[in-house]
């Protein structure tokens, strides 16, 4: 950990001044429960437009639940979510969700290209079939992930890293503005990790926003510029340099095996 952090108490707090930046995802008072056991307590989250935001937290902190709550995939007990000032239902075409790669059935009889093509379904709507243009877009997306040679490969024959690249290619094909990713780097090879991070940085240059659940504190500050620390409640959020502090990590029960060089 080479990042030097300002330990000044004043700088630890996220100042209201920071919030004047353009907020693209605004979550207010979000409470979510699983079997009547609250997982997230009354959380306010603001994601800055055009940021690369990481969400970290210990196991069971509700990271995936938070993403699913924002996207309306899981029921919320209370709270509101606004994305670009609108509800998810109104803006779904601009949102790409990349789930944990073990959340789908990889034995499904389909090819890598076919999965990427699903990104186009968002724009096609019901019944309409993908056209040549859509297939072209999907092929380009595979190419961007360095997967063009695997287009016709059945998805069960892909490695963990390749599966993740196919998922990201699907998000590229969708041409979304905001990417929500649930641990995209879990269990992938070094090469894929680099491809994914390059993709995130590239997307930022194109004005896009990514919100990524991340688990490796060592790479956190290199890969992302904004941070949300979660442990059932929001512990801290804001710019990476101001948020990634020992005090915050300790407050989230994450300080244990990890020390920040101050």
């Amino acid at each position, binding site marked *: 950990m080479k990042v030097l952090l300002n330990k000044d108490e004043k700088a630890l707090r996220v100042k209201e001044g920071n919030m004047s930046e353009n907020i693209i995802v605004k979550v207010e008072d979000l409470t979510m429960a699983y079997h009547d056991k609250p997982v997230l307590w009354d959380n306010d989250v603001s994601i800055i437009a055009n940021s690369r935001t990481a969400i970290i937290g210990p196991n069971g902190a509700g990271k995936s639940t938070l993403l699913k709550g924002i996207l309306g995939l899981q029921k919320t007990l209370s709270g509101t979510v606004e994305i670009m000032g609108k509800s998810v239902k109104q803006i779904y075409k601009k949102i790409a969700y990349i789930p944990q790669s073990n959340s789908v059935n990889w034995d499904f009889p*389909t090819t890598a290209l076919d999965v990427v093509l699903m990104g186009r379904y968002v724009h096609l709507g019901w*019944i309409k079939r993908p056209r040549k243009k859509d297939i072209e877009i999907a092929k380009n997306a595979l190419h961007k992930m360095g997967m063009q040679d695997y287009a016709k490969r059945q998805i069960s024959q892909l490695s963990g890293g390749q599966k993740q690249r196919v998922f990201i290619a*699907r998000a590229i094909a969708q041409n979304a503005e905001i990417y929500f990713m649930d641990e995209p780097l879990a269990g992938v090879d070094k090469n894929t990790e680099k491809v994914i991070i390059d993709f995130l940085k590239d997307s930022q240059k194109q004005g896009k926003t990514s919100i990524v659940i991340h688990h490796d504190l060592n790479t956190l500050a290199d890969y992302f510029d904004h941070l949300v620390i979660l442990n059932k409640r929001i512990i801290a959020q804001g710019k990476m340099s101001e948020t990634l502090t020992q005090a915050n990590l300790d407050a989230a029960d994450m300080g244990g095996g990890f020390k920040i060089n101050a």
Partner: protein
Amino acid sequence: MIYQNLLLTKMLDFLNYNQQMLLTLIVTGIACSLLGCFLVLNKLSMLTDALSHSILLGIVLAYFVTKNLNSPFLLIGASVFGVFTVYAIGLLSKTRLVKNDDAVGIIFPLFFSLAVILISTFARNVHLDTDIVLMGQVIMIPLNTMTVFGVELPKALFYMLIILLINLIFVVVFIKELKISSFDPEFATLAGFSSGLLFYGLMTLTSFTAVAAFDAVGAILVIALFVGPAASAYMLTKSLKKMLLVSIIFSILNSISGFYLAIAFNVSISGMIAVTTGFTTFMTVLLNRQGIITAIYLRHKNRKEFRLDLLIMHLGNHEDQEDAEFELGFATIKDHLYWDQETTERRLNRLIDQGFVHRNHERKIYCLTEKGRLRYDMIKVDYGV
């Protein structure tokens, strides 16, 4: 129109009773396997079991209302009840007091036994026999006919043709939506395709198909028709369209073979088709690409090939070195590989036959041929040396 009807009548006259039965079975099988593919992909096979049993209660209740076993309302009423069963199972498992599997196991025996009690108490003199319920009455298919546009054809065949048409249209029109919601339901929901709508659409048609097939083939065969061909096709194919096609082929083969075997042995037709369905599925388990027998065969073959590769590596590594006379000598090579004389020679001879190795009589050692050199380089790349 009249001419067409005449032609159709002639055709059906031409089909004897056996062929009419078989045709009905094939049509039923195709109608079932089309939906079966999506049931298997969504891991809903057991729900079919529940559905096919609990529709009996639907049929009984609908009969009490219509008082007519031939009424189309019976079909609709029973189908609606089937969907209600699925909904009830979903509702019960949502309480989180019981797991989904348990909910299936609670609801369908309850409904099924209620139906059996109702039949035996109030409808004893009606043709709703509990034996027939399970095995159906294939043999009765040609006897129960109806006239459609002037053509006399088995009632079961007519109903199943309509159901097949509906299922085919559903699958063709919504294949994209069905694919995305079975592969990645959350993504489908976000992309604006309501998984709930597709789920109940699929379940309604499954219920409809099960009810219509029930009379002809019974509650047990209908499960086999839904699940067997689809499960076999799932193991063999790598695209959804191929899976649908292969499942149809399996279904037709199962029906034909089961039908003629049943006639040959004079046993229950639907029972025999369930047997052939089970048999073909079992064979697919053994023989598919990742199947048990295939795995044993491949392991054996790999082991053999690995030994030969090892030999080529050994030759390639030592050929140009000073110790080649010892390492690769006609008489001494076996000591360096720790293999016995016979095995070593057998393997070397095999490589000589394949043109990878030749005997260098001048130096009294085994050497790689040019082809062997190429193979040596390839092996090094393959194993990453």
